[in-house]
């Protein structure tokens, strides 16, 4: 098992290099660059050229990338070309903000999905199943940002229940009640965005379990549907669900881009949006790096969890 994990982690490194290189090349090939974003047309060409030299943008592409890579490997993610802040410091501040929003939302969606999915799957074709599946279909088709606008209108303007922008009111940082007030609407939007796919997955899993032969045997031995659901099916369904948690790891960081933008939530989503528009490459590369690492790690965790929990699977040298 340990060798398998190490092997997978070793594959991570070349992959990260390739991904960041591709993204870097793309950024570099763009017809405009970060200098255009932070200068005005009235500034002279010489000024722009000076700024380029100052940021090292006049150097050959491979040199720039090499420098970035060399620093990144040593933990130095550089400085934002736009704000001059340390990228690492920005990340350290923004990632927890995003987590504090998506963490609870994903957890809620997860639990909701398990409950609804088990109910729907165990009563396949029944009224409850149709209702739940219908709700999921509608939710999946609804654009997240539109739902956010509706929520803002209803709760923010009409009912005046919650503040609309930001994570906290001025001067009230650290105040839990104030945080919750700001948190309520984006949290609701995210839960609605996240739960339908998960529910569908749990439902499909449950149906597959009920179609399995052993359920027939259970019924032959007099087990009621409730018993089968709670003692057998739910355990067998939870297994692949837990692995989904691993795959959700990158979502925790980058899954709320649109929501953060609408609600002005100071997280990673906002960060990547503003720096993408400005072609601020150290920031873009850093975020891409983080999410690629999380994706691969998430896949690995999912595979390991699955192998640990399912007695039929034993990871061998040759298996993926």
């Amino acid at each position: 098992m340990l060798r398998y994990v190490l092997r997978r982690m070793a594959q991570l490194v070349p992959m990260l290099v390739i991904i960041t290189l591709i993204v870097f090349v793309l950024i570099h090939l763009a017809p405009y660059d970060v200098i255009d974003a932070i200068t005005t047309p009235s500034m002279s060409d010489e000024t722009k050229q000076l700024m380029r030299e100052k940021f090292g943008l006049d150097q050959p592409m491979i040199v720039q990338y090499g420098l970035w890579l060399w620093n990144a490997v040593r933990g130095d993610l550089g400085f934002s070309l736009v704000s001059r802040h340390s990228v690492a410091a920005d990340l350290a501040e923004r990632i927890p903000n995003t987590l504090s929003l998506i963490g609870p939302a994903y957890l809620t969606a997860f639990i909701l999905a398990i409950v609804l999915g088990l109910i729907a799957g165990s009563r396949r074709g029944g009224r409850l199943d149709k209702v739940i599946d219908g709700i999921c279909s509608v939710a999946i088709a609804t654009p997240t940002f539109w739902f956010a606008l509706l929520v803002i209108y209803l709760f923010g303007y009409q009912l005046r229940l919650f503040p609309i922008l930001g994570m906290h009111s001025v001067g009230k940082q650290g105040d839990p009640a104030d945080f919750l007030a700001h948190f309520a609407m984006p949290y609701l939007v995210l839960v609605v965005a996240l739960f339908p796919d998960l529910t569908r997955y749990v439902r499909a899993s449950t149906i597959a379990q009920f179609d399995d032969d052993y359920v027939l045997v259970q019924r032959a031995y007099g087990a009621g549907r409730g018993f089968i659901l709670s003692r057998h099916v739910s355990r067998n369904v939870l297994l692949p669900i837990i692995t989904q948690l691993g795959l959700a790891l990158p979502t925790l960081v980058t899954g709320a881009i649109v929501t953060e933008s609408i609600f002005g939530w100071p997280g990673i989503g906002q960060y990547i949006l503003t720096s993408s528009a400005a072609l601020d490459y150290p920031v873009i590369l850093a975020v891409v790096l983080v999410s690629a690492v999380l994706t691969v790690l998430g896949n690995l965790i999912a595979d390991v969890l699955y192998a640990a929990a399912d007695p039929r699977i034993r990871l061998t040298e040759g298996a993926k």
Partner: protein
Amino acid sequence: MTDPILQIRGLNVDIVPPRADRIPILHDVDLTIERGTVMGVVGESGSGKTMLLRALMSILPQRAERRWDTCLVDGVDLTAPKPARPAMAMVFQDPLTSFNPLRRIGGHLREVVRRFTALRGAEAEQACIAALTDVGIPDPARVMRSYPHELSGGMRQRAMIAMALLAEPELLVADEPTTALDATVQAQILALINRLQAQRNLSVLIVTHDLGVVAALCDQVTVMKDGAVVETGAVDEVFSAPKHPYTRSLLAASPGAATREAAS
């Protein structure tokens, strides 16, 4: 003096798909099994023999409709709205998929003991071990701790039979219990069923497409075709002097027919 353990009269089963026509599966099926005897039900695929078992055990698929005039099992009337649980247990064809792959054999056995007997705790554990020993498993404790996929096909089927015995049945129902097994293992399982039947005076209903199994194990045989009973009677009689043309063709087509011809 007849003492039937099982009596079915007028069993009809249809499948009713939502957007298509009704499909008849079983038509006016009668079946009687005397206590302490072994009845074999034979037929090709699609003859309805498996559905017969599923109708009896009340585990028909969702879209199936069952109607019957009489069904008495060990005195229990199954046509009643909320019948008592009859003393019968079923052994399935594929022991690998019949167990929950994520639970150990012991878990399965203990569950059955809990539901069908008043035994708990250490007594229940002992009953499980005894059942496994009864079916000829050499190391019962290890099997209790094993997962289904860790056992060989023959061991798994023995474990399933043990599980059925723990339900303390008077009637043992078996759906092609040896089809998924190798030839040598088949013989062992059949010998096991034979021994158990004699030891406990079990009645056995066994469904199979293999006439050899019927010849080896059964006292009575019922032949089915296209959802209806075609012929029924004592094995010796039916095999030596079949009355129905279908029975004759079935016998002629099976391996060993020539040997039987010569012997009769």
